[in-house]
C-alpha cells in the first residue's frame, strides 16, 4: 500500500518543531481578561457563606462568579454528580458542599493574572467541616460519612460475574493461590497543564479553545450546565499537549464558557483566558483509580486454571467521573486473557474524599491485570510450570468464552502474541513445552537480576452497550483528477498522531498523494461528533469512518459528480451491558492483544529497581504508521515503568502531599528502561480499517506484573503492592524492618 503502513512524517511535525503551533496556553486574543479559580482546599465541608465584596472592590477586578451564577449547577461524564461551582444559591441540592480539595468555589476575572490571584485570596468563605473519609473500605461501611447524601451509600457502582460454580471447582483444584493486591494512584503529568480561552464568537456562540479528548462531549457538558442549546456552544481544540485520559472529564471547560457568557450578559465582550499552574493541574483533574483486589485462583496439576474468584474495590474519589466504565473494564479484565470455566467477580466503585479518579491509559486494565497476571505467575511457580507454557494452556482462542459468557470477536491472537514475545525474550519451545531463558547473571553480589513475563488484552472502542459511533465528512474537488480532498473530523490528536493516520487513510483510500488531503479538525462548528480520543479507538473508529466516507465519495466521483461531499457515520457492531445478576454480556466489538517480558536489576543495598530491557509484543492489526506505533509502545512502556517503580502519589486525610513534580516523581531519561524492543504484530482485525486495531493503551497493561515477576525472579520475593520505591523493596527483602500495619 502506498500510504497505509508507511512511517510518513506527522502532519503536525513542522509546526511543533518550529514553535508555530499554538497550544491552548499560547492562544491570546485582543483585549482578553484573565481568570483565576478559588479551589476549596479542604476535603469535605458545607459552604455556609461566601463574601466576594473585598475581591470585587479590588481595582482591576472585572467580575467574581459563584455557584449562584451557574444556570444548572451540575455536570459529569457518566452521571451529573458534581457542581460546577460549590456554594450556596445553587439550583441543585447538596451543591453547597465541597467533597475534595480541588472542588471549584469561585471564579475571578480581572485585568491581569496577578490581580485575579490577589482578588481570589480576598474572597471569604465560611466552611462547616464535615467528617472526612479517605479509605475506600471504610467508605463502604454503613456508618461511613456520606459524600452524596441523596444517594444513600458511598458505593455507587457494583458489578457481578457468575459463571459456573467456583466453590465446586476449587474442590477439584490441585493448587490454589490467594492474594491481596493494592495498586497506587497515578497522575497523568502531561506536558501541558490545563489552559484555554473563552469568548462569544462572531455568530454569538459561547466558544472555548481548550485541550480535551472529545469536543462534542465538552460541548454537551457545557450546554447542560449553562442551560443553552447545543448549537449555542462551540468547542475548538488547538494543539493538545498530552492527555492520557486526564482530559476526558471537565476541568476548565465549563467555567471558561460560564465566564464568557456571564460577562457577555453584563455587556462586557472580552475573551477570558486561564492557565493552570502545575500545582493547580495536579489537584484540579482526576487520577488513576487505586484498587484493592482480593484474588483466589485454582488450577489442576495439568496446568488448567478452572476457577477464579475476584473482589475488586476501586477508590472513585469524590465524584463518579468515568469510574463506572473503568470498573466495568477492570471487571472484565481481572481474570486475564484466559478461558476459565468457573468465575465469580464482585466489583465496587466507592466515593471517598480523595481526588476523583477516572480515565487513565489502560482504563482499569493495568490494575486488573496486575492481580490477574501475578496470580498466573504464582500459579506457575506453585505448579512448577513455565509461565509461558501455563499461559498457552489457558489463553482465549477463537470461539473461547469470556468470563461474561460470550466469545470474543473474531481475530483472537493472544496465543501468537505470547509466543512471539517469549521467543524474542529468549524462551524456547521444547518437547516438554516452553522453557524460560537462564536467569541473567548478577553483575555484582549486591546487584540481582531477573526476568518476568505477563500479557493482556485491551478493548478497542466504547464498551458495554454504549451507542458507539464516529462521523467523517469528505469533500473532493478537481476536474479530471482529484486535486483536493477535504476531510472534516472532530477526533482529537492528543499527541498520539491521530491526524496523521486520518490523512494516510484518506490518501490511501482515495488513491491520491498525501499532500492533496486537507484536514479540517476538532471544531464543533465545522466537524461532527467523532467520539473520544480514548479507549484506543481513534484509528479504528476514525479510520473506518474516513475510509467508508472516501469509498462512497469515490463512487460518486467516478459517476462524474463534481464536487463530491459525503457525510458518513460509522457504527460498529452493538455491544451489551453486564447482566446485573450474572454479568453476561457482549462487552466489546474489537480488541488488541499484548505480551511483555521485562528484565530488571535490583540494587539490594539502595533498594533501587532498574529496568534493563522490555520486550513488548503488540498486535495492532495493521500499523498504519509504524514509527508512530513504536512511539506509542515506547511511550506507554515508559509511563508504565513510572507507575510500576517510581510514581508515588500520596494523599493524606484528603490533602495531596505530592503537589509538585519535585515530590511526585516521574521518570527522567536516566530512569527509563535501557532498551525497549517493540514487536509490532499485524494479525488483522476483520472489522478494522485496513485491519487496524488500536495501540494507545495495550503496551501499558502488562508491564507492572512483568516487572513484579522479574523482581521475584531476581529476589524470590513477591510484591503485592507497588510502586517499587526503594524503601518498599528493602522492606520486602528484609533489609529494613516492615512498616507497622496502618
Amino acid at each position, binding site marked *: 500500500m502506498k500510504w497505509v503502513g508507511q512511517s510518513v512524517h506527522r502532519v503536525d511535525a513542522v509546526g511543533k518543531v518550529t514553535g508555530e503551533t499554538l497550544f491552548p496556553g499560547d492562544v491570546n486574543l485582543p483585549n482578553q481578561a484573565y481568570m483565576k479559580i478559588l479551589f476549596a482546599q479542604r476535603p469535605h465541608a458545607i459552604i455556609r457563606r461566601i463574601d466576594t465584596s473585598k475581591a470585587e472592590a479590588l481595582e482591576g477586578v472585572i467580575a467574581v462568579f459563584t455557584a449562584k451564577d451557574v444556570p444548572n449547577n451540575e455536570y459529569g461524564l457518566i452521571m451529573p454528580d458534581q457542581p460546577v461551582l460549590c456554594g450556596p444559591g445553587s439550583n441543585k441540592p447538596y451543591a453547597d458542599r465541597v467533597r475534595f480539595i480541588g472542588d471549584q468555589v469561585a471564579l475571578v476575572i480581572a485585568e491581569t*493574572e*496577578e490581580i485575579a490571584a490577589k482578588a481570589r485570596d480576598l474572597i471569604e468563605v465560611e466552611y462547616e467541616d464535615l467528617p472526612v473519609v479517605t479509605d475506600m473500605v471504610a467508605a463502604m461501611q454503613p456508618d461511613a460519612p456520606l459524600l452524596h447524601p441523596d444517594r444513600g451509600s458511598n458505593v455507587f457502582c457494583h458489578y457481578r460475574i457468575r459463571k459456573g460454580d467456583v466453590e465446586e471447582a476449587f474442590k477439584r483444584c490441585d493448587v490454589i493461590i490467594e492474594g491481596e493486591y493494592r495498586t497506587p494512584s497515578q497522575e497523568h503529568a502531561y506536558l501541558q497543564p490545563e489552559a484555554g480561552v473563552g469568548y462569544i464568537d462572531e455568530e454569538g456562540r459561547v466558544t472555548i479553545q481548550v485541550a480535551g479528548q472529545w469536543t462534542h462531549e465538552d460541548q454537551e457538558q457545557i450546554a447542560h450546565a449553562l442551560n443553552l442549546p447545543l448549537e449555542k456552544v462551540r468547542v475548538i481544540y488547538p494543539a493538545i499537549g498530552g492527555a492520557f485520559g486526564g482530559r476526558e472529564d471537565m476541568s476548565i471547560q465549563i467555567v471558561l464558557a460560564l465566564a464568557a457568557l456571564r460577562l457577555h450578559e453584563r455587556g462586557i465582550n472580552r475573551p477570558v483566558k486561564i492557565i493552570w499552574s502545575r500545582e493547580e493541574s495536579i489537584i484540579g483533574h482526576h487520577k488513576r483509580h487505586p484498587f484493592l483486589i482480593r484474588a483466589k485462583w485454582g488450577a489442576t496439576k495439568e496446568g488448567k486454571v478452572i476457577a477464579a474468584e475476584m473482589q475488586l474495590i476501586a477508590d472513585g474519589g469524590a465524584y463518579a467521573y468515568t469510574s463506572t466504565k473503568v470498573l466495568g473494564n477492570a471487571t472484565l479484565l481481572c481474570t486475564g486473557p484466559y478461558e476459565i470455566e468457573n468465575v465469580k467477580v464482585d466489583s465496587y466503585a466507592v466515593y471517598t474524599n480523595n481526588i476523583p479518579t477516572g480515565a487513565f491509559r489502560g482504563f482499569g486494565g493495568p490494575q486488573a491485570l496486575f492481580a490477574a497476571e501475578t496470580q498466573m505467575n504464582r500459579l506457575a511457580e506453585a505448579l512448577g510450570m513455565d509461565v509461558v507454557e501455563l499461559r498457552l494452556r489457558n489463553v482465549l482462542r477463537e470461539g473461547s468464552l469470556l468470563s461474561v459468557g460470550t466469545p470474543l470477536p473474531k481475530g483472537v491472537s493472544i496465543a501468537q502474541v505470547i509466543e512471539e514475545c517469549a521467543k524474542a525474550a529468549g524462551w524456547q519451545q521444547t518437547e516438554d513445552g516452553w522453557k524460560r531463558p537462564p536467569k541473567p547473571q548478577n553483575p555484582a553480589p549486591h546487584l540481582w537480576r531477573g526476568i518476568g513475563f505477563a500479557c493482556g488484552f485491551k478493548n478497542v472502542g466504547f464498551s458495554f452497550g454504549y451507542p458507539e459511533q464516529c462521523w467523517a465528512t469528505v469533500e473532493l474537488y478537481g476536474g479530471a483528477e482529484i486535486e483536493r480532498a477535504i476531510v472534516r473530523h472532530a477526533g482529537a490528536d492528543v499527541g498520539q498522531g491521530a491526524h496523521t493516520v486520518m490523512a494516510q487513510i484518506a490518501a490511501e483510500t482515495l488513491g491520491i498523494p498525501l499532500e492533496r488531503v486537507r484536514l479540517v479538525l476538532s471544531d464543533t462548528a465545522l466537524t461532527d461528533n467523532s467520539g473520544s480520543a480514548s479507549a484506543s479507538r481513534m484509528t479504528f473508529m476514525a479510520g473506518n469512518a474516513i475510509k467508508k466516507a472516501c469509498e462512497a465519495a469515490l463512487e460518486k466521483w467516478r459517476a462524474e459528480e463534481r464536487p463530491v461531499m459525503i457525510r458518513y457515520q460509522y457504527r460498529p457492531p452493538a455491544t451489551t451491558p453486564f447482566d446485573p445478576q450474572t454479568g453476561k454480556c457482549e462487552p466489546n466489538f474489537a480488541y488488541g492483544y499484548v505480551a511483555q517480558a521485562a528484565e530488571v536489576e535490583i540494587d539490594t*543495598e*539502595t*533498594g*533501587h529497581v532498574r529496568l534493563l530491557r522490555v520486550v513488548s509484543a503488540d498486535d495492532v492489526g495493521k500499523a498504519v504508521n509504524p514509527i508512530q506505533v513504536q512511539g506509542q509502545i515506547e511511550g506507554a512502556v515508559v509511563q508504565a515503568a513510572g507507575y510500576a517503580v*517510581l510514581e*508515588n502519589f*500520596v494523599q493524606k486525610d484528603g490533602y495531596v*502531599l*505530592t503537589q509538585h513534580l*519535585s*515530590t511526585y*516523581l*516521574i*521518570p*527522567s*531519561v*536516566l*530512569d527509563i528502561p535501557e532498551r525497549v524492543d517493540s514487536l509490532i504484530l499485524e494479525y488483522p482485525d476483520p472489522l478494522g480499517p485496513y485491519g487496524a486495531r488500536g495501540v494507545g493503551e495495550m503496551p501499558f497493561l502488562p508491564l507492572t506484573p512483568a516487572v513484579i515477576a522479574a523482581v521475584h525472579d531476581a529476589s524470590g520475593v513477591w510484591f503485592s503492592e507497588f510502586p517499587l*520505591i*526503594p*524503601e518498599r523493596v*528493602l522492606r520486602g527483602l528484609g*533489609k*529494613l*524492618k516492615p512498616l507497622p500495619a496502618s
Partner: protein
Amino acid sequence: MAIWTHYYIPQTLDEALSLLCREPQSKAIAGGTDLLLELQQGRHPPVRTLVDLSQIAALQRLEMSQGALWIGASVPLNRVIAWPPVRHFATALCEAISLIGGPQVRNVATLGGNVAHALPAADGAIALLALDAQVLVASPEGQRLQPLLACYAGPGKTALQRAEIIVAFQVPACEKEEASAFRRVMRPQGVAIAIENMGIWLRRKDERIEDIRIAVGPSGPMPFRARQTEQVLRGKPLDEETLAEAEKVLKSEARFRTSPHRATAEYRYHLAGVLLRQTLQTAWERTQLNFAEELGPLSVKG
C-alpha cells in the same frame, strides 16, 4: 509575573557590595537556579533588587596556586567540571557538581550559590566540606578567608550578611597518597536533590588510613562532618572490622530525619552504611592511582 523590580549587573566587587548596601530588599544572584524558583513559588521573602554577580572578574577565577585550587564563586558548574585540575586534585567536588541538576542547570548554576543557599545536603557543599575548603568572603569591611561551616546558620539559612559576597573557594589540592570521592542516592535519576550524599577525603600511609574527612548530608541543619567516624578510621587498615565499627559510629553520630514522601530516617540510616562503604572504597582505590592520568572516566552525567 515580575518577581523583581530592579536588576543590576555590576562589573566590580565594590560596585556589587555598595549596591547590596544601598538598595533595600536587595539580594545577590548568581545562576539563580534555586533563588528564582523560591521567589516564584513565594518561599523566599520578596526582593526588590537583584544584584547579578556573573560579570565580576574576581568571582570568575579558576586557578591553581600554592597547592590549592581557587574556584570563583560565580563560575558556572559546567566550566568548573571541565577544568582538569578539579577532576585531578579535587575529584569529589568534580563528581558532586556533575550530579547537580541537568546540563542546562549546570550551565548557569554556581558553587557560590550552592553554598549561599545553605542546604544541608547540597552536593557541592558536601564535597567542599570533605575537601576542607576555605571560603573567601567579601564585605564592605574587606575580605576574609573562613571555614566553610562558618557560612551556615541553619537549614537554608546562611550566616552571611546581605552585603557579603562569596568570592571564591580555596580547595587544598590532593597530594600523593591522598584522594577523594563523592556518592549520592537520588530519585529520579539526574534531576533530583539527594536523598543522601557523602564526600570522603583521605590520606593513606601504606595499608592504613592516615587521615580522613567525611561529610554527609542531610544530617542535621547544615552539612555534617562525621568527626567521630573519622576518629575511628584514622590509623586503621581498611578491613571489615574497621568498617563495621565505623558504620556503627556513623549511624550513632549522624542525625537523619524523615522527609515526607522522599525518604524515612530509617532508610537514610541504612544508606549511610552503604554510602560509607562505597565512597570509602572508591577513595581508597584512588590513592593508589598515580594522579590524574590514571583516573579514568568519572561517572559524570553530561
